[in-house]
């Protein structure tokens, strides 16, 4: 039981990062980014190429990915999302679907279909009070928590964060007060890029990297972000942790294959009681 909860927390923390990225882009750009999975894949391949092909140690490769990948999200934004900016959420959502086809298959084109792994040794777990905790879990938890604190500081303590929240709350008012929303959008994509890059490395350590990999995370990420309330980064974290723990605990009662089903049931229930998620706010209807 305790082991399951621990596992659930770690799974949740890994998912929390892209879920925050999803929530952030939703808050600022007002559309659900379906390309989040493919972006994750793409970032993981960048890290893998640096790590194995260029022979950079994983820590350095991860750091480089954190720097390089935001450039990719910015390119995606200017190539795909910016021209469609005022077309409504569904158009953007479908465009993000198209983008995920492109990103996933660029990885396939360049690196092929094989499953890839980082060049790091695996280790046996530490044992503590009957619990098994492994090295990757500690790293994942550490990185995720650090990233969460970083996001929290940026959003709540920096001028940029204030501008982002202003745009998220009411773009028109923010524009009227002289906030440059182009800059805010760029900052959002950079932040999302960093989060996605960080989680891609954690995911790559957790399992194998292959071109399909991102699809496995789309539904979980969305579930986490929705439960927490789309547009609320803190909610995304709570949502991700909750989904992780519920998912693991559910295996005690139902066939593990229905884990995803239980997660969806949770979403449906949350949405029925709170239509805008646990931490979401009702948007002002124009």
């Amino acid at each position, binding site marked *: 039981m305790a082991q399951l909860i621990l596992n659930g927390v770690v799974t949740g923390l890994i998912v929390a990062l892209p879920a925050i990225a999803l929530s952030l882009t939703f808050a600022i750009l007002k559309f659900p980014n379906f390309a989040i999975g493919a972006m994750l894949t793409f970032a993981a391949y960048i890290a893998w190429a640096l790590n194995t092909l260029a022979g950079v140690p994983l820590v350095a490769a991860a750091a480089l990915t954190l720097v390089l990948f935001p450039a990719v999200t910015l390119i995606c934004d200017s190539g795909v999302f910016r021209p469609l900016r005022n077309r409504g959420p569904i158009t953007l959502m479908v465009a993000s679907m198209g983008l995920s086809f492109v990103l996933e298959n660029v990885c396939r084109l360049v690196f092929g*279909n094989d499953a890839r*792994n980082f060049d790091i040794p695996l280790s*046996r777990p530490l044992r503590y009070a009957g619990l*098994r905790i492994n090295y990757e879990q500690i790293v994942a938890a550490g990185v995720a928590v650090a990233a969460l604190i970083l996001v929290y500081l940026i959003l709540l303590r920096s001028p940029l964060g204030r501008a982002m929240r202003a745009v998220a709350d009411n773009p028109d008012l923010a524009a009227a007060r002289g906030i440059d929303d182009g800059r805010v959008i760029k900052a959002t994509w950079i932040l999302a890029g960093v989060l996605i890059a960080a989680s891609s490395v954690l995911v790559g350590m957790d399992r*194998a990297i292959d071109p*399909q990999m991102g699809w*496995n995370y789309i539904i979980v990420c969305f579930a986490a972000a929705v439960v927490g309330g789309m547009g609320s980064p803190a909610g995304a974290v709570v949502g991700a942790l909750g989904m992780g723990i519920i998912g693991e605990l559910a295996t005690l009662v139902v066939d593990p*294959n229905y884990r995803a089903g239980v997660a969806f049931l949770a979403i449906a229930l949350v949405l029925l009681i709170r239509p805008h998620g646990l931490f979401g706010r009702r948007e002002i209807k124009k």
Partner: protein
Amino acid sequence: MAKKTNMPSNAGRRRVLKTGAAAGALALSAPFIRPSWAATGPIKIGMVIPFTGATGAYGPEMEKAAKLVVKAINDGGGLLGGRPVELIIEDSETNPTAGAAATKKLLDLNDVSCIIGYWGSPIAMASKQLLIDAKKVMMVSCAANPVTEQPHNGLIWRFQAKSTQWGPAGAKIMKQRGYKNIAVLAQQNPFILPMIDPFIEEFEKGGGKVTQNLTYLPEQPSYRAEVEKVFGPEPDAVFIPGLLTDFTSIVKEVYRGGFDSKICTLSIAGDANGRFLKNVGAEVAEGIDHYQPAPPLTSPNYKKFIQMMGEPEGTVFLFAGNAFDQMWVAALAMEKAGTDVSADWTKMVPEVSNPPGAMTGDGMEALKMIRAGEKVAYVGAGADCDFNDMGDQLNRSFLHRVIKDGKNEYVQTIS
């Protein structure tokens, strides 16, 4: 033809009969005379294999192997009196609808004489009716039993062991290892599921017990919950029939979870031409048993095949060997029948592959012998290639290996 010319007429009935007989003789001997219209074009062979989607990793090696055969045949002067072989390959996208559309394209647009490949049972299942309707030969490299179960007019040939044959072999290995309590963690997949029941039956025959039988869905973010559930009660060993990507994740999870139960799996997951070892490293992989239908490892022809594929000695191919054999058997049967009309040459498939006959694994040599009128029994790079009436392979023996110090070590061949 002959019947029409035999229609009674008043004048010269005898002459008509004669022409009729002549026409009949001509029709019979047509394959051997090879009328000029047929001799001009290349012999077209289609191939449907995955390059994208979840099983995209298995397509390229099959493509490479099939192309080796095409090159060998064409360099050696082609088939049926000098016609070159043209191989047209389509992507199945690991998706039955796309696979069936590809099949239809090959049949109608390229007018192929047969279609080979078919990795993945759902794709074969969705496509097979199209081939049966078109009266074209289908050669599959997938294992699900239903592919050959319904009547198919002798058009479908399976170059892979049937799922139900895989199960008992695994059980025998685990019995020999002396395991008493084992668990099964199987991928939810039409190739793997049918092997579970025969596996359990065979294992429990020896007095052992299968304590848990869990299936998992591929393409999940993590397999932590499944691993926890199956390895938690600490069985002696776990049988994990899966595919490379998910098996890699599961084994990493087992190692990091600190579990000590032994693992037995299929070689397509636990070897995959060395990719598994490359994925997880020697220490994690230590002691994993894996098995697969045995290629004729010791034969010089198999060694030559590996060399042609550009892989180090000792590599054990499965699907590449299947593709290689499919091409050769198709070529040999066509040469033997003297035609590329599917309905005719499909009858020759057992003739060129089953004993009696001179056993050979060298396709070019087999072609020469067929041209010389000798009886051959082709021995493939993936299997012996002997078939029963249903189109399934006979006498599949399995090769059992274990991972020791970062290498795959031969243990035994199980029949």
